[in-house]
């Protein structure tokens, strides 16, 4: 992090140099200018964390400088300093937007606290802006990548339901991007100015989930040392995303149902009902109807949640999206790791297309991240993928053969590897490429099946 930058504006040279010297000892970068015009120029040209402006100056006084800074960069806090303090000027300065008003000479303790407080406040504002940008960068509607008809249907559905207030149930296997769908609905709704609040119900222990969702009052239970707002309260005028809804207990289901019906709740240990305006989006990778049949999920809650259903297809059912998803993740991890990657070799892409992706997009994302990290060339090659992908490929081919010949999996794998090696004159690199495995794996398989070259015999 760079040094905090303070602009000092005072017409008296002795004041400027004295304040500058003192602030420099505190580690700040300080620039001092002698009049308001120069100060305004500096504010236009550069970024400042704080401006310390003298009230009485010729030509343009401190209050005018304060007003101008407020117009150009309102985020810069301004301290007005003066040797001639009056209540009137103090009131005027504060009304004009001054962050503080201090009389010269300053008590060192007072000025230190004021400056440190404002600089810290400024740092937090900047951090907040940076984090928001980061969040926006991380989530874009375009993250819902896909040209397949199934995915286009999902996107159309999102656009249709987003402006409404309806509760939505998103179903789909783990890793298919259910949270991305929920975020997209939030971003396209009128609630998007408020933060998207999510609760991973399955990840929070049963005993804590109620406190986490509904909040609690001080003294509600051992350890409740202060009042705590729950996710529901935090999501007021926004969207609450309840992930893994199929994992919550029947007791919490009852409380949640009551909340959804009445749109008000009580904090744990609280007496007064709290009304909130939230839109609920729930998601699950479980079959809720089966859970209802087995008595693990309340039917009435299911119908409350299942007003509109969006089903996110698994990746194996939209394989045509794999190339564009893979390219997207490649670009993302190239940026994150600072490695310039240009694409995938034909064999590598074929391997991605052939795999059935039980872990869906999350697994694809992790696979590409792995490949980008280990890649030594500008293209992602088969060798760069994790072992499970290449092993699965051989096993997949062998399994297909088993069905035809009734041989064991190992026998078929052995035969397949042996024939590939022979037809390529035991060229390991070439054979590995054709088999879609890396050379180390091929050597291991050769060892395992005790295969021997016959080319010199």
């Amino acid at each position, binding site marked *: 992090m760079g040094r905090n930058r303070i602009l000092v504006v005072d017409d008296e040279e002795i004041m400027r140099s004295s304040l500058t010297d003192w602030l420099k*000892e505190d*580690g700040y970068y300080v620039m001092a200018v002698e009049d308001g015009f120069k100060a305004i120029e500096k504010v236009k040209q550069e970024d400042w964390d704080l401006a310390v402006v003298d009230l009485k100056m010729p030509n343009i006084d401190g209050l005018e400088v304060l007003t101008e800074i407020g117009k150009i960069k309102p985020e810069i806090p301004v301290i007005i300093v003066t040797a001639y303090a009056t209540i009137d000027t103090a009131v005027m300065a504060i009304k004009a937007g001054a962050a503080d008003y201090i009389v010269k*000479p*300053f*008590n060192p303790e007072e000025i230190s606290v004021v400056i440190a407080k404002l600089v810290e406040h400024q740092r937090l504002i900047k951090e907040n802006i940076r984090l928001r940008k980061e969040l926006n960068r991380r989530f874009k509607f375009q993250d819902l990548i896909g040209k397949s008809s199934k995915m286009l249907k999902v996107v159309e559905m999102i656009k249709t339901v987003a402006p409404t207030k309806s509760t939505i149930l998103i179903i789909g296997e783990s890793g298919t991007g259910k949270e991305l769908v929920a975020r997209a609905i939030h971003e396209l709704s009128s609630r998007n100015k408020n933060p998207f609040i999510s609760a991973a119900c399955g990840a929070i222990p049963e005993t804590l989930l109620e406190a986490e969702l509904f909040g609690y009052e001080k003294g509600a239970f051992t350890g409740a040392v202060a009042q705590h707002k729950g996710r529901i309260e935090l999501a007021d005028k926004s969207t609450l995303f309840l992930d893994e809804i199929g994992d919550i207990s029947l007791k919490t289901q009852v409380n949640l149902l009551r909340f959804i019906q009445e749109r008000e709740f009580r904090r744990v240990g609280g007496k007064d009902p709290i009304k909130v305006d939230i839109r609920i989006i729930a998601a699950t990778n479980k079959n809720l109807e089966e859970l209802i049949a087995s008595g693990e999920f309340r039917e009435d809650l299911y119908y409350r949640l299942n007003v509109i259903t969006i089903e996110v297809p698994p990746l194996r059912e939209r394989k045509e999206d794999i190339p564009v998803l893979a390219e997207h993740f490649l670009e993302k991890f190239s940026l994150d790791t600072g490695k310039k990657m240009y694409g995938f070799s034909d064999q590598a892409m074929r391997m991605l297309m052939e795999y059935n992706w039980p872990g869906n997009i999350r697994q694809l994302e992790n696979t590409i991240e792995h490949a980008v990290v280990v890649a030594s060339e500008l293209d992602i090659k088969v060798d760069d993928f994790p072992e499970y992908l290449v092993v699965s490929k051989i096993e997949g081919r062998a399994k297909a053969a088993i069905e035809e010949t009734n041989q064991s999996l190992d026998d078929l794998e052995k035969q397949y590897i042996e024939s590939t090696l022979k037809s390529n004159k035991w060229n390991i690199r070439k054979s590995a490429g054709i088999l879609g495995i890396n050379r180390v794996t091929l050597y291991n398989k050769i060892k395992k099946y005790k295969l021997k070259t016959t080319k010199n015999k």
Partner: protein
Amino acid sequence: MKYIYLKEIGDIKQALLGNVIKILDFLPFKLIEDANYPVFAFEPKRNQYYAKKIIEKMVMELPVDCEKLIGITDIDLCTPVLTFVYGEAQLGGKVAVVSMRRLRQSFYSLPEDNALLTKRLAKVIIHELGHCYGLVHCNDTRCAMYLSNNIVSIDNKKGNFCFRCEEFFNKKIRKENHGQK
């Protein structure tokens, strides 16, 4: 060899400075004195002395074998923008000045305590010396480079640098004494 000079400005008991040097024995100190009070730096409206004016004069009188020069005085120091200072230094420069006035227990209407005064004085000297070697204030409340705006915080901190400030300080000393990088 170059020395760090402690210059007595006005009337100060040499014995006290001798004890301070014993605390700061890891540096090569020399003592000199100037019995004259810096009347040129006096600000009658505030009944205090401007530290910077004293420093400006001291810069003109640097001894030949002087690495840094720290003035020690019993008068109350201030700057144009601050109501008082315990000390003032040229950041990355040669000269600093330290006042004992607000380090004395008697300033707070308590019985005088020379041992405590010696400790406080050593802390402020090492702080200003740190500034002369380019160190800025440190966030560690126990480090000598922590910004102390009151006597409690001076008493609270230790008389030496934290690990990071010490590393910087030693590097600077080596560089300035031997031209090393």
